[in-house]
């Protein structure tokens, strides 16, 4: 059990680069919940609840919010990868945690099986009905019946296990777009359906009667069956350690996603029942489905003999996982094919998410030594938990092949419901044991009644599902018994060893940064340039009476939790230790290793988290002429998205510059260049302010520089001034700097680009590339300006392009 080293103090020596916003994780939650559930399960559930399907979704939303509040509270307080498993471990001890993790692994994996089967069914229908491709008939192999759907399902399972092993990432933006597309498709379907219902109110209303053809028991079964669709908060909290300001963001995302998703599900149910007519085609397909026993036609009344006696919900029930797609053909033009395509994408993205989350859970169990250490092994090259991924993939595929789709759905629901029982109980224990020590971002009302209601409702639903699929319960019980066996035979002894080790571990503490107001953040990757960067950054920090924070970024793939990056942080730590030798005595210099998925974004996030005022980066001095990047992927990312001032130093390894040229033309960026100039002058450099005249008005230019010179003199900083005429500004600067023997050029950014990537502008970048000495390019942060340009670039320009993983920062 955790003591005061445990739950309230989950602190570490490194910074995790948080890069997900409340919008991002809300979309992750919505994506998970709108995902495959609505496409795959709606038909099955309609067959159980009848028109009461609308009520089933509303009730599910209502009872789910009790556990949602628990997740919001714990997710805001302990935002770490691991979610429910972690909380149960902290609150109830490792033996309970083993059970929670064991069930969670199964639940996520079997959810993946459900999505592979949904994918298989959709692809099969698309190929046969729309492309006329004849596929082989199902064949019996021992106890299993293998049809084309199962082959497609296996293919998807293998593919996504491989993708997760490779560590290829789906960028946040791409994920958001996929979610928006599928939500849009569903909203269009709803709009068409409601249009029909409002146009034919009497006919539509009649389809809702009788409202509960299978009584409330049908509603309860439908609730249990579709419960998996509302477990997006488990996915949201899994991302907790990667969220900016998780205390606020995690609970809000839980609530927002629940609100949106439940409303959409209810509207889909209304449209599905109210706007669909039983046509001869649908009737025939339902009869064929019932005869073949396919499409999850378990525990359903038989299809009526005549079409006049058949209700929509009965037909949908026998169409099973294809119910929504078939019905959509009536609701809107090309409805079936649109829903099939959206369903294929949704099942694949949901499969990706479940492969990822089941891998994470089994990986965490391996790390906690309750499963063999192989589970926590990380591939040396890919840096992904390859064995946990392979075993999770195997479990997904095995369950998809071995069980019919409705049993897979029910088994998933049973496991999630049992897992949520434990989480609700853990929330009570955590609040009672550590409530006054935890920094909550949300607290549930009516404690402890909310989690108690959560426990009772989940237990009732889980038990009720036995009526629907005893096979699912037998499978669940078998899995739990196997888990209990493994725990007593293997894990229990290892738990004791682990706890003994943890009791004696040494805790090291990072030297806390002083609050000196102004902070210069310097990312370091190359020790050769550390001296030059620290010298430049320290000069500015000294002038502003501030401090320097050195950081080096260790990256891990998206599939690996950030906290796992710690095992790769030793190289970064050594690098920073070495760089500290260049720290001046009169400026506070601190160091921290940053762990993130992407170097550029990590630097920006750490600057945001540490409230840095200036990020100072190194650059080799070569522009990218053949790629979309200007100075390099990481520098581009930082410069374009930083929420503070940015300086890029072309490093030449030169010692302290004696003569510094500062081309200036006024404006915010020039003011930042002036700051550098003053800071350099304070260290003894000879600074010359320089202006290139292109319109012949030399007097105005001289007067402009004289004013600047005068104002600096008031601060006891002496600088020279020079004016030159020339048509090409960059050429003139370069000629003057070379002819006068300057060693350093400090220049502010000029210009912004929307459709083209422009970081500092043509003049600074040309000077930066062609000048042989040190060049410092600076860009002032302008919040509103940057936000507008950032938005435009993201949606119009090339800023939406993902950055590469694994590239090192150039210094």
């Amino acid at each position, binding site marked *: 059990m955790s003591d005061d080293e445990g739950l309230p103090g989950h602190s570490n020596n490194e910074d995790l680069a948080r890069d997900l916003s409340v919008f991002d994780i809300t979309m992750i939650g919505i994506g998970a919940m709108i995902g495959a559930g609505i496409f795959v399960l709606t038909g099955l559930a309609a067959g159980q609840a009848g028109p009461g399907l609308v009520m089933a979704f509303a009730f599910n939303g209502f009872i789910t919010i009790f556990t949602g509040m628990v997740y919001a509270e714990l997710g805001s307080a302990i935002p770490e990868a691991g979610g429910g498993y972690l909380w149960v471990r902290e609150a109830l001890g490792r033996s309970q945690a083993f059970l929670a993790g064991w069930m969670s692994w199964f639940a996520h994996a079997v959810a993946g099986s459900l999505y592979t089967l949904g994918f298989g069914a959709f692809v099969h229908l698309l190929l046969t009905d729309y492309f006329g491709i004849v596929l082989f008939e199902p064949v019996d192999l021992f106890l299993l019946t293998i049809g084309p759907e199962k082959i497609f399902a296996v293919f998807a399972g293998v593919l996504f296990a491989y993708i997760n092993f490779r560590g290829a990432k789906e960028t946040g933006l791409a994920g958001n777009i996929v979610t928006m597309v599928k939500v849009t498709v569903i909203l269009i379907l709803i709009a068409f359906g409601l249009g029909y219902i409002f146009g034919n109110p009497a006919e539509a209303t009649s389809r809702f009667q009788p409202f509960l053809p299978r009584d409330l028991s049908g509603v309860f079964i439908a609730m249990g069956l579709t419960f998996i669709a509302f477990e997006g908060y488990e996915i949201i909290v899994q991302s907790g350690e990667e969220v900016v300001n998780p*205390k606020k963001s995690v*609970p*809000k995302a839980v609530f927002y996603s629940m609100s949106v998703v439940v409303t959409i599900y209810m509207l889909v149910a209304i449209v599905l029942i109210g706007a669909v007519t039983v046509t001869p085609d649908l009737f025939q397909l339902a009869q064929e489905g019932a005869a073949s026993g396919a499409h999850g036609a378990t525990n359903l009344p038989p299809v009526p003999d005549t079409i006049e006696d058949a209700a929509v919900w009965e037909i949908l029930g026998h169409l099973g996982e294809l119910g929504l797609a078939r019905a959509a053909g009536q609701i809107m033009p090309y409805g079936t094919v649109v829903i099939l395509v959206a369903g294929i994408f949704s099942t694949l993205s949901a499969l990706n998410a479940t492969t990822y989350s089941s891998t994470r859970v089994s990986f965490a169990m391996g790390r906690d030594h309750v499963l063999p250490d192989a589970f926590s092994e990380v591939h040396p090259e890919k840096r992904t938990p390859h064995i946990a991924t392979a075993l999770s993939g195997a479990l997904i595929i095995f369950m998809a092949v071995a069980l019919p789709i409705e049993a897979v759905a029910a088994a998933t629901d049973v496991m999630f419901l049992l897992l949520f029982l434990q989480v609700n109980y853990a929330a009570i224990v955590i609040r009672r044991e550590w409530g006054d020590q935890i920094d*909550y971002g*949300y607290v549930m009302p009516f404690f402890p009644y909310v989690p108690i209601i959560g426990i009772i409702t989940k237990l009732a639903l889980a038990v009720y599902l036995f009526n629907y699929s005893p096979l699912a319960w037998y499978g669940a019980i078998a899995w739990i018994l196997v888990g209990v066996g493994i725990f007593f035979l293997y894990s229990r002894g290892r738990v004791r060893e682990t706890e003994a080790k943890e009791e004696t571990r040494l805790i090291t503490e990072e030297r806390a940064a002083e609050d000196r107001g102004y902070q210069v953040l310097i990312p370091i990757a190359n020790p050769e340039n550390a001296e030059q960067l620290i010298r430049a950054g320290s000069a500015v920090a000294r002038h502003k009476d501030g401090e320097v924070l050195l950081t080096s970024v260790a990256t891990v793939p998206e599939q690996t939790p950030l906290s796992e990056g710690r095992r790769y942080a030793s190289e970064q730590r050594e690098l920073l230790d070495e760089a500290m030798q260049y720290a001046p005595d009169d400026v506070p210099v601190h160091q921290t290793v940053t762990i993130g998925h992407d170097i550029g974004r990590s630097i920006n996030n750490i600057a945001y988290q540490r409230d840095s005022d200036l990020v100072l980066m190194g650059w080799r001095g070569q522009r990218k002429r053949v790629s979309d990047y200007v100075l390099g992927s990481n520098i581009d990312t930082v410069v374009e998205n930083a929420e503070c001032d940015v300086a890029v130093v072309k490093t030449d390894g030169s010692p302290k510059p004696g003569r510094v040229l500062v081309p200036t033309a006024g404006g915010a960026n020039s003011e930042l260049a002036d700051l550098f100039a003053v800071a350099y002058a304070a260290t003894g450099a000879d600074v010359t302010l320089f202006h290139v005249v292109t319109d012949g008005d030399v007097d105005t230019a001289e007067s402009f520089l004289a004013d600047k010179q005068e104002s600096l003199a008031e601060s006891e900083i002496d600088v020279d001034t020079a004016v030159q005429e020339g048509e090409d500004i960059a050429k003139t600067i370069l000629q003057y700097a070379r002819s006068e023997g300057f060693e350093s050029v400090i220049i502010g950014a000029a210009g912004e680009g929307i459709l083209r990537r422009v970081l500092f502008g043509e003049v600074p970048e040309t000077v930066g590339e062609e000048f042989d000495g040190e060049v410092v390019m600076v860009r002032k942060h302008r919040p509103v300006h940057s936000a507008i340009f950032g938005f435009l670039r993201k949606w119009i320009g090339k800023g939406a392009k993902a950055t590469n993983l694994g590239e090192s920062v150039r210094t």
Partner: protein
Amino acid sequence: MVSTLILGAILTLLAWVGLQAAVIHGKYVVDKIDSGEYQKGPFSDAMDGGSNE
């Protein structure tokens, strides 16, 4: 006699409203805790419900 459909519709609506009320209350609590104005939680005096971000 109220029909099953009407009763079902009322219960459905109540459940949906209950959910939305929980959501709105949740957002309210999060914002209040962030601004340090929420006092109903299990906070110690040192934390006072305020943000430590």
